[in-house]
């Protein structure tokens, strides 16, 4: 297993946000995590990604314990992520954004001071810009891109250091339908061609059912379903959690 999450619990001043969640992610999967608002998705994500320290439970990446590791260490260990809110470096150009995303993952810091300005990552940046159709915008400041393009750049940045696993936090938020479909297709294509594993948190059911290979459903801090998208769609508990909640 690439990622194993076991028994995660997190409580905020009396409220049990996550109540013992366990699941695992196999190499090459696209796993969707869905759940109604307040089901503990974001808290779970933050516990996995080192933003919050879980009260109990373990996170293992290829068998080694990475629970509570600082975000910068997780990134170095090969876990990439995007945020719910857009997070690109607005004043840097698209190319600079990508170079920065990749540069800390190779060589030493002192070596980077003396290295060529692109750290030998120019080719990789071109490739990602090509894949995400950002090529013509290479030298434009990231802040000048459209919202959808910034979302693609955000995703490309997470992929820049060749991570083994990328966690996407609500990638569909605020994106129009056409762009959403394009993003989903690019995601699936990248997964098929490069084998990168993805975990996607989303409350857009359509996006999850269309683009993932397995779905975990959370409600009230617990997992209530885990299976193929089609099976989850017909699951009575899931329907109840969404409609009866």
């Amino acid at each position: 297993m690439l990622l194993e999450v076991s028994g995660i619990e997190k409580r905020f001043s009396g409220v049990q946000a996550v109540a013992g969640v366990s699941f695992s992610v196999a190499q090459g999967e696209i796993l969707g995590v869905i759940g109604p608002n307040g089901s503990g998705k974001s808290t779970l994500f933050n516990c996995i990604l080192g933003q919050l320290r879980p009260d109990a439970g373990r996170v293992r990446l290829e068998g080694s314990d990475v629970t509570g590791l600082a975000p910068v260490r997780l990134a170095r260990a090969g876990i990439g992520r995007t945020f719910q809110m857009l997070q690109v470096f607005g004043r840097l150009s698209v190319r600079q954004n990508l170079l920065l995303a990749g540069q800390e993952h190779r060589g030493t810091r002192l070596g980077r001071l003396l290295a060529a300005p692109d750290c030998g990552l120019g080719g990789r940046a071109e490739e990602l810009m090509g894949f995400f159709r950002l090529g013509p915008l290479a030298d434009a400041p990231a802040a000048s891109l459209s919202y959808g393009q910034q979302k693609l750049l955000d995703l490309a940045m997470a992929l820049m250091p060749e991570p083994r696993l990328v966690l996407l936090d609500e990638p569909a938020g605020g994106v129009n339908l056409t762009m959403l479909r394009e993003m989903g297709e690019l995601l699936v294509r990248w997964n098929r061609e490069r084998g990168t594993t993805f975990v996607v948190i989303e409350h857009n059911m359509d996006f999850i059912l269309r683009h993932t290979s397995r779905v975990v459903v959370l409600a009230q801090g617990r997992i209530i379903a885990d299976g193929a998208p089609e099976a989850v769609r017909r699951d009575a508990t899931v329907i109840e959690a969404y409609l009866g909640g």
Partner: protein
Amino acid sequence: MMLRALLVAAGLAVLVLLPLGLKSYGIYLLSLWALNTVAAMGLNLTVGQAGQVSLAQAAFVAIGAYTAALLAPLGLGFWLALPLAVGVAFAVGLVVGFPALRVQHHHLAFVTLGFNALVILVLRNEEWLTGGTYGISGIERPDILGFSTFGALPFYYLCLGVLGAASLAMWWLLRSPWGRAFAGLRDNPLRAASLGVDVRAYTLLAFAIGSAYGGLSGAFLGPLVEYVDPTPFGLETSLALLLMVVVGGAGSFWGPFLGAALVTLLPEWLRVAEGFYLMLYALLVMVLMILCPSGLMGVLERLAGRLRRAS
């Protein structure tokens, strides 16, 4: 790009030719401007790039000045004492920065303020080493390849050379992967960390490199005035250096050149006010902060933008 290169060349020509028409006091002011610009440029890295408020730059200038003044007569000579002065400022920057950067923003301002006070305390109290309040006098101006820089004009050209070298190094640093990391942690530290950028390490480095620039400036400040004492390195100077950065526009490459010119010359213009000079100065600073907090570079950029749109 062409225009910028032309502007830099023209500016350089002015700086080379200007002192030929000035008396020695004017040349002294120009030299002071060049050294202030170096110190402000370093602080600009800390403040403008790494986003940290430091009130200790004067302390690092002091460390550079005293280290060079103490080591040069020990048979090392100025040119061996110089890298040591810069190195000591860098190392002290790392040591001070380490605890200081555990806290952010306004807290850092206090910690650095406290550090500046501590440095002054040591300079005043350790008479055996620093000469106490009287300081160290008779600091010699160095020779370059056998040429003396004793005169006002040769020493000015030396200061200009130091400014040129420091600017080139800064330009190169900002274009390097480190510069990109600095820009990233200022723009969005949360995202930078998630991409594996060690925000703390880079902030610390920015702080220490900024301190080293302070040390470099100080090493030449001693020979410029030919003595050092604790007085010019107090909080007022740290404020003045911070002011140079902010007036020029924090984070802007050419900002410190402009800011240092204004803050270095201001006392000369306010000289008519005599004893009331500092009152007037403080008042001006407050008005400036209220009216154009983004600095003069910000105002110039806005004007340029308006002109471009108009044409």
